[in-house]
């Protein structure tokens, strides 16, 4: 036979109180859960919205890039348009890239010449210049300059063609806009960005030479000998791998933003702005990644 239950042995008031306590506990626990839910949901709304959008945009960019690459390997190939784009994007950017290279090279040379003079190591200036310019500044500055000048132009041109129905008109006349507009620009950039980088490197090193000879009073041979010695496979590979990657970034982002622009002149303006920002940041990010990968592969660092 079972004994009396706890409830039976307790006064009525205590039973009610304990039941109320249990009820409040349930309410409090559930309210806590409710609060957690509210906080997590609002956090998700605040934080996951942009993240989700970022992944969505990245997916779209990758798909678009894939379509452009596919179009690159199919006929017809528009040679005239490609040459025209090489002229507009490459030759048109020449003075800008050369000026940037010259000024950057001179600024670096002034800084290092002064620092190295304190240690009596001015003859290392050429060596430092070749590393700074060939590996880093030449490709990056060229990439940023071309991004600012050419990427904005590509996005604005394609965007305005889209908003004025010219892209649809191309398709209506059985012309694939990717082959006609995107591929020539991609090929032109793949040829011209490395070429401009080489020009930027040469002009930058020459700027360093001017400072070395006329301000730091280093002999020309003392400057150029280490420069030539350090133009080895690793430095040249890094110096030319980067502009190729930057050309892909500039072409894919600017074309994607141009073809995806919506909403007339305002939309084209927004797309152009985004194109330059995304391209510039992507170039700096890619520069870091490529430097890390090549250092690991060639030098065995990291």
């Amino acid at each position, binding site marked *: 036979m079972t004994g009396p239950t706890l409830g039976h042995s307790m006064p009525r008031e205590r039973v009610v109180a304990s039941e109320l306590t249990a009820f409040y506990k349930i309410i409090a626990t559930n309210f806590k859960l409710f609060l957690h839910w509210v906080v997590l949901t609002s956090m998700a709304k605040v934080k996951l919205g942009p993240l989700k959008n970022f992944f969505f945009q990245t997916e779209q960019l990758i798909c678009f890039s894939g379509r452009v690459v596919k179009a690159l390997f199919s006929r017809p190939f528009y040679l005239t348009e490609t040459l025209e784009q090489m002229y507009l994007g490459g030759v048109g950017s020449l003075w800008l890239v050369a000026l940037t290279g010259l000024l950057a090279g001179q600024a670096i040379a002034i800084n290092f010449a002064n620092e190295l003079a304190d240690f009596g190591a001015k003859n290392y200036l050429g060596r430092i210049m070749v590393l700074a310019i060939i590996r880093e500044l030449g490709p990056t500055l060229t990439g940023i300059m071309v991004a600012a000048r050419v990427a904005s132009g590509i996005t604005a041109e394609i965007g305005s063609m889209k908003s004025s129905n010219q892209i*649809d008109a191309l398709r209506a006349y*059985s012309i694939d806009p990717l082959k006609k507009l995107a591929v020539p620009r991609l090929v032109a950039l793949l040829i011209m960005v490395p070429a401009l980088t080489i020009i930027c490197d040469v002009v930058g090193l020459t700027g360093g030479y001017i400072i070395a000879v006329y301000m730091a009073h280093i002999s020309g041979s003392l400057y150029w000998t280490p420069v030539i010695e350090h133009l080895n496979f690793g430095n040249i590979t890094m110096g030319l791998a980067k502009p190729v990657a930057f050309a892909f970034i500039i072409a894919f982002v600017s074309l994607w933003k141009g073809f995806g622009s919506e909403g007339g002149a305002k939309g084209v303006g927004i797309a152009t702005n985004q194109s330059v920002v995304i391209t510039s940041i992507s170039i700096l990010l890619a520069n870091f990644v490529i430097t890390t990968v090549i250092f690991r592969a060639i030098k065995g660092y990291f």
Partner: protein
Amino acid sequence: MAQAQDMIRLQDVTFAYEYGDPVLEGVSFCIPEGESRVIMGQSGSGKSTILKLLLGLYKPISGEVYIDDEPIGPCSEQHLGDVRKKMGMVFQDGALFDSLTVGENVGFYLIEHENLTIEEVEERVRQVLKVVRLEESLIDKMPEELSGGMQRRVAIARALLATAPKIMLYDEPTTGLDPESATQVLRLMHQLTRERNIATIVVTHQFLDALAIADKFILIDKGVVAFDGSLADLKDSEDKRVTSFLEPFRASLRLMEERRFV
């Protein structure tokens, strides 16, 4: 008398842009050869979308588009190119390629697709410029050097030279033009429809221009066909959507009927 063959047929077509509500729902109509049809409706009602569906630039969610009795839904992009040869499209504002001259714009299709010499292309460009009543001296001008009316006529010439079309599609052909240029463009459109026995679709929200050239009218309201019939039926219609669309034009309707070419 044998009934004219349908050049264009839309059968229960529904279309929506990505992640959006349907723009068109269950749209059906057909247009025989040599007949012109004006599609009217408020801005954003889905008029221009119909033209892009006809060109195969967009694919409907459901239903089918037939061009010259051939369904274009299952067509590959390459085969769509052959179907599009039957159609000439004049886009809103002309959509001339602004990096090309008038001659290069008009001869664009021939330069891209036909194996002709520059002299042969130029000769055919000059011929078609005469058809649209433009001076041959304009051949080396850039599009921005032309007036709005001239740009539309260049766009018509480009469409005519491209494909010798059986179907002409016009998207807002008179929007932004002065009355004289608009009349010239409308007269040219009407002449092409009659002389070349072309099935014509004109999309416009300018009802008074539509009156000048249309054999029949289609009114699109919120993505559905609110009316499809003749002018007499349109005027007699008691459908609220039709009467509210016609309301602003009642006063000038009788006056403008005198301007009709048809």
